[in-house]
């Protein structure tokens, strides 16, 4: 790859961080699911009872099962169904971490438009992840 076609420093950095987090997320997803199905940890809702609820709308499901929403799952990490959730959280958080990693590069290069884009993007993702905005009833 010649210098002209070589991706920018921040692009390569983004790719490396994303790769690490994606692999970690997938590993955690598989591990958590195994813990969930194997019954190694107690569950908030027994796995064989989930089919009674999976045909319901999500707000009915939450109301009937008492499953946590937003970040309320954090204190319940000793439950199998919550552990199976961790990989999903890591996968969803990966992009946010990547943006945080490349932001200093844009600032250092005085690339103001992209520094602003990245800052706004981080804020948008933080807002989405915060749980303050949800849809539904």
């Amino acid at each position, binding site marked *: 790859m010649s210098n*002209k076609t070589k*991706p920018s420093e921040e692009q*390569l950095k*983004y790719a490396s961080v994303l790769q690490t987090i994606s*692999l970690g997320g997938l590993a955690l997803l598989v591990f958590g699911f195994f813990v969930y*199905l194997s019954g190694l940890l107690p569950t908030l809702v027994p796995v*064989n009872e989930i*089919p009674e609820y999976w045909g319901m709308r999500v707000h009915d499901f939450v109301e009937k099962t008492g499953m946590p929403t937003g970040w309320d799952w954090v204190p319940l990490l000793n439950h199998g169904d919550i552990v199976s959730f961790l990989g999903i959280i890591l996968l969803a958080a990966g992009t946010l971490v990547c943006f945080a990693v490349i932001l200093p590069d844009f600032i250092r290069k005085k690339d103001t438009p992209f520094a602003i884009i990245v800052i706004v993007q981080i804020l948008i993702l933080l807002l989405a992840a915060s749980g303050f905005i949800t*849809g539904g009833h």
Partner: protein
Amino acid sequence: MSRTLRRFLFLLAVVAITTGFYSIAFGEEQVVEAARNGSTIVWWMWPAILFVFTFFLGILAVVAGVGGGVLFVPIVSSFFPFNLDFVRGAGLLVALTGALSAGPGLLKRGLADLRLALPMALIASTCSIFGAMVGLALPTNVVQTALGGTIIMIVIIMATAKRSDFPDVKEADTLSSVLRITGIYYEESAGKQINWQIHRTPLGLSLFIVIGFMAGMFGLGAGWANVPVLNLLLGAPLKISVATSVFLLSITDTAAAWVYINKGAVLPLIAVPSVAGMMLGTRIGVRILARAKPKAVKWIVVTILFLAGFRALLKGLGIWG
């Protein structure tokens, strides 16, 4: 190292899912319970079937050159007993993990372009959040009907949209010049470096409002819309458009996925077998691709997608539910 690790993960996924289901499927008790409930299928069979089903869907998606997410939601919501809320949550995760797996490699090879993706991603991800909120607030039959209509529209786009390997962009527009959205990549088939730039950036950005909203609302990947906009409208070369579209998905779907996660609409029992099946199928699909006839497969997929869209439409309207 990463390839070996990925292979190990896939193997682990298969083992975890099969042993997991075995451990909960003690056999007789479950069958008796199913019979008592008047059901002919034991409950744990659904996630197991979903795993096998998404495995084949992953193969089809690669061979036909279609995103897995766009196939997943209409088909699974039509033929599986899961509520559309959970199917959309799983669909987003399927599209997201696919994009996260492919994204780093495409960025490192310079095919996906960070500067091209970021402005589009900002608009699309913001709107995908609103799409997800609206999708979770509307009655299921309304979303199902809109999904059916959207899928039929996607089928028409897939069947008719042309693609241009190297669109002729005579002059970059002001906005893309200010943002320095331009690049050079090595085109192996031509054996030379290709310089590219884009035009009509404001119009392209405004289309990502709609694309992002729909991605969030229906839990679909948005490659079907990203690629025509990047390639035909903005004038990015086809390879750059396809690769940047995949990377874009990883940002757009992340934003929407958080809304579904926080709302409780991502059920691991549905999402994990789907992700594992799809990723495994995609791997196999890449190997089959060399021997397959992509055009024939593409038409099969387009037909399946049309039928699934039509079924979703009828289900939403209460005609065939």
